[in-house]
């Protein structure tokens, strides 16, 4: 897989008119104090180089041989969360692909042996050693299944078969703060009668983190291996709670070769189950809740309605949208390797988003992405904010089984 930008795209990058579409939600679409502050890195660092147009100019200068690698160049290109807002607005009308240009710059940095940032290099070492970015043993990948009152099929050997492969990804299983979400999801799927299984400890990373840091070959390796595995096992449907995995398998794997399986985010499946009457949220949650659209689920994955369908199905729940939502949502700050490489920037961005959430009057902030969850949880813990974070799948579980039921599953281990 390569970033094969055609001449037209480079011409547009070269002639970026700096119109500002990549950094501003127009008042016609959404009005608000924050709508001129749409690029997370530009908003944080303010220099033009940290905005998409600045990076486009830098890429062109680099291509022309007018720019050499330096620490500052690396800081500029690795300060992008790859939230994709710039690409969403620019690509439709100007052909330019600012987010892909950043990925191209990162892949060049890796090829030159200068990228990524020092803190981010552990990710690639961990992938080489453990097949996950967090350096955790393969055997612990399934620790979340312990204590569940039902058995999940193991599809890894091809002996057991199921209609759906649940692909938890690398982040939910290894972070104890968000790991219970997998148990809630599995319980909901089981009780709704979904025939599903997992790959257990043989599951490997999808390659998303490597891709976002510029390691294209690593993505290709995982992509090839995973596609082959899915085909060998006859997998037809993959469901993942991770927005990063969804984007990678849905949008990138399809560029690597023929994929006979479909990939869904867990919220799509859960929304369908509610619509079909197989899941019945009956316990009221009398709280005001706001929802954060993860960039990889929303702008990249184009899934906006399913999480809202779930929230609206929960009795008693007062759902309040944030001002910037759906395609115009603001990033949590955790993506694109930023949380690993530049935690202060990641947290500053989380703070901006949480202020927006608080402005809705919400008591609970919810989302469906492990990176967003981690970044928000860290900030809320540090800041002592009155806002509470609960994953959307947990909220649904609470509404289906009541708070007590959820507590039982959370502490199942």
């Amino acid at each position, binding site marked *: 897989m390569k970033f094969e930008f055609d001449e037209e795209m480079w*011409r*547009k990058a*070269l*002639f970026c*008119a*700096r*119109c*500002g*579409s990549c*950094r*501003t*939600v*127009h*008042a*016609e679409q959404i*009005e*608000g*104090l*924050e*709508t*001129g*502050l749409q690029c997370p890195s530009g908003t944080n660092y*303010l*220099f*033009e*180089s940290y*905005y998409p*147009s*600045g990076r486009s*100019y*830098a890429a062109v*200068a680099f291509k022309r041989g*007018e*720019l*050499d690698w*330096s620490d*500052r*160049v690396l800081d*500029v290109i690795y300060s992008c969360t790859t939230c994709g807002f710039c690409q969403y607005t620019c690509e*439709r*009308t*100007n052909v330019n692909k600012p987010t892909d240009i950043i990925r191209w710059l990162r892949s060049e940095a890796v090829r030159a042996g200068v990228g990524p940032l020092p803190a981010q290099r552990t990710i690639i070492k961990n992938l080489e050693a453990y097949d996950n970015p967090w350096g955790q043993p393969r055997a612990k990948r399934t620790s979340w299944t312990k204590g569940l009152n039902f058995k999940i099929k193991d599809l890894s050997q091809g002996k057991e078969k199921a209609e759906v492969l649940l692909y938890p990804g690398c982040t939910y299983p290894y972070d104890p703060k968000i790991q219970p979400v997998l148990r809630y999801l599995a319980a909901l799927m089981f009780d709704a009668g979904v025939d599903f299984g997992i790959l257990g400890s043989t599951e490997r990373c999808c390659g998303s983190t490597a891709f976002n840091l510029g390691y294209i070959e690593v993505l290709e390796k995982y992509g090839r291996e995973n596609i082959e595995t899915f085909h060998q096992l006859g997998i037809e449907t993959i469901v993942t709670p991770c927005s990063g995995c969804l984007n990678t398998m849905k949008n990138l794997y399809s560029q690597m070769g023929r994929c006979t399986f479909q990939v869904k985010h867990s919220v799509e499946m859960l929304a369908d189950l509610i619509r079909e009457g197989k899941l019945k949220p009956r316990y009221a949650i009398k709280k005001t809740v706001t929802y954060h659209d993860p960039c990889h689920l929303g702008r990249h994955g184009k899934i906006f309605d399913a999480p809202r369908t779930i929230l609206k199905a929960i009795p008693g729940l007062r759902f309040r949208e944030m001002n910037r939502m759906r395609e115009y949502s603001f990033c949590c700050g955790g993506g694109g390797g930023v949380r690993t490489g530049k935690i202060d920037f990641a947290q500053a961005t989380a703070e901006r988003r949480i202020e927006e959430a608080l402005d809705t009057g919400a008591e609970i902030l919810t989302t469906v992405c492990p990176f967003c969850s981690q970044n928000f949880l860290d900030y809320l813990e540090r800041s002592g904010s009155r806002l509470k974070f609960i994953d959307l799948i947990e909220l649904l579980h609470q509404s289906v089984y009541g708070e007590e039921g959820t507590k039982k599953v959370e502490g199942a281990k």
Partner: protein
Amino acid sequence: MGLKEVKKKLQDIVGKEWVSDEPVDTIPYSRDLITDGLKAYPERRPDIVVMPGSTPDVQNIMRIANQYQVPVHLIGGGVTLLGGSIPVTGGITVDLKRMKGIQLDRENLTVTVESGVFVTTLTGYFKHLTEKEKIPWRPYFTGAPGGSLNNATNIFQGINKFAGLKYGVGIQNIVSLEIVLPDGSVFNTSGGANLFGVNHWMQGPGPTLTYLPFFALGSFGICTKITWSLYPMPETCQSIWAYYEDFEIATKCLIKLLHREIGRGLFVMPSWTQAAYSAETREEGIRLAKACPKYMLGMGVEGTRRAVAYQSELANRIIRENGGRIAPPELIEVYRGHEQNIKGWGQSNSPRLMRHMGMIMTNMAYLSVDQVPEYVRLCAEGTHKVDAYMNYPEPGFGAVASGPQLYTYQWGHFVIAEFIFAYDHTNPEHCNAVWQCMHNMGAVPWKMGTGPWTLGRDPFVPNLTGNFYETAKKLKNTLDPNNVMNPGIAFTD
């Protein structure tokens, strides 16, 4: 040696993290639409970028610049398209994005904003106030959505000419400015009358200095704060749009409406411009442009519900009696940005400005109403010359399109006229054609009275303006003897 020392001194003023001479940081300031396409300015990087956080920072930067005689250029929101921020002589680029203060004066109904406040931010600020505190007041301003409100990209270029429909052009709604002069001194243009520290008297005891920096393209100083009047939001508003095949008939209708004092913000322009502004995608724009007749008249009506109903009916009748075809409501929907502007919400001169193509407005003239027919005649000549250079099967998309347009922003009786070009700014042939046409059209502003905005844009214009340009230069030399303030932009010689 000099620049290293300057960098160190700038770091002492604003802190190390807000000063950079790294190529990756200076390259993005070196270009925009006008350097790339029209090549009206050469591509040039600043030597140093500095981001002041306050007015005293700006003062100290100017003192350093003057001491070392290093040129200073300005940038605000960073969405400049037309060259005002290109550091054509190198030196220091002062990026004002850190200055984001907004201060509301509830008693005097003004708002004071620092120079890094974006257009959308102030719009959002007032939306927030309306929702949370039920304050039905608005300033009237506009500009590119990501643009900042009061620095090189707006005040100094004069983009705020497109502003409140009811209350006149943007600069007429400003009550005072805080300006840092090239020597580092700071003054408030309402200071003369400002015994109690309130910025609400634009004239001062005289002479009136508030208008000094407008259209001067940052040549006289750096505007660090701007104070706007607030006005009540109308109870309701409505857009009226009509189509014409002929520019002359449309302008006659416009004058009739002006004479009856109906509506706000009347304009006549080529229909493809609004198609381009309004479309969500390039394809949609082409479809809309092809579906449109050649010219359109637009206007806003606002006030009480009863007044809006009465004026709309009257306007519709006048339009119909004068050769216009009223646009259907479903088409008006795509122009909702205009209505937002009337209400004071949208605060932008077009819903999706500049997203599909390079576009440049040029050869601006300020006309009295009785001059309009002559302008129309000259434009017809000019259009003929333009047609000799251009060929546009699909107006505005993939080819050059052009046309005259007229704006009015108050009751009666003057009109801003200009010629608009849309072209593929990545195509050298288009750029050359536009450049040639701008030269050929030079006769229009010369005959009709030159708008100051063109002063810094069209190199041939200073030769046409008599002693106006020479007088402005004298003032410049007095305020900025070392010519450090945005040299080479407004005063090109």
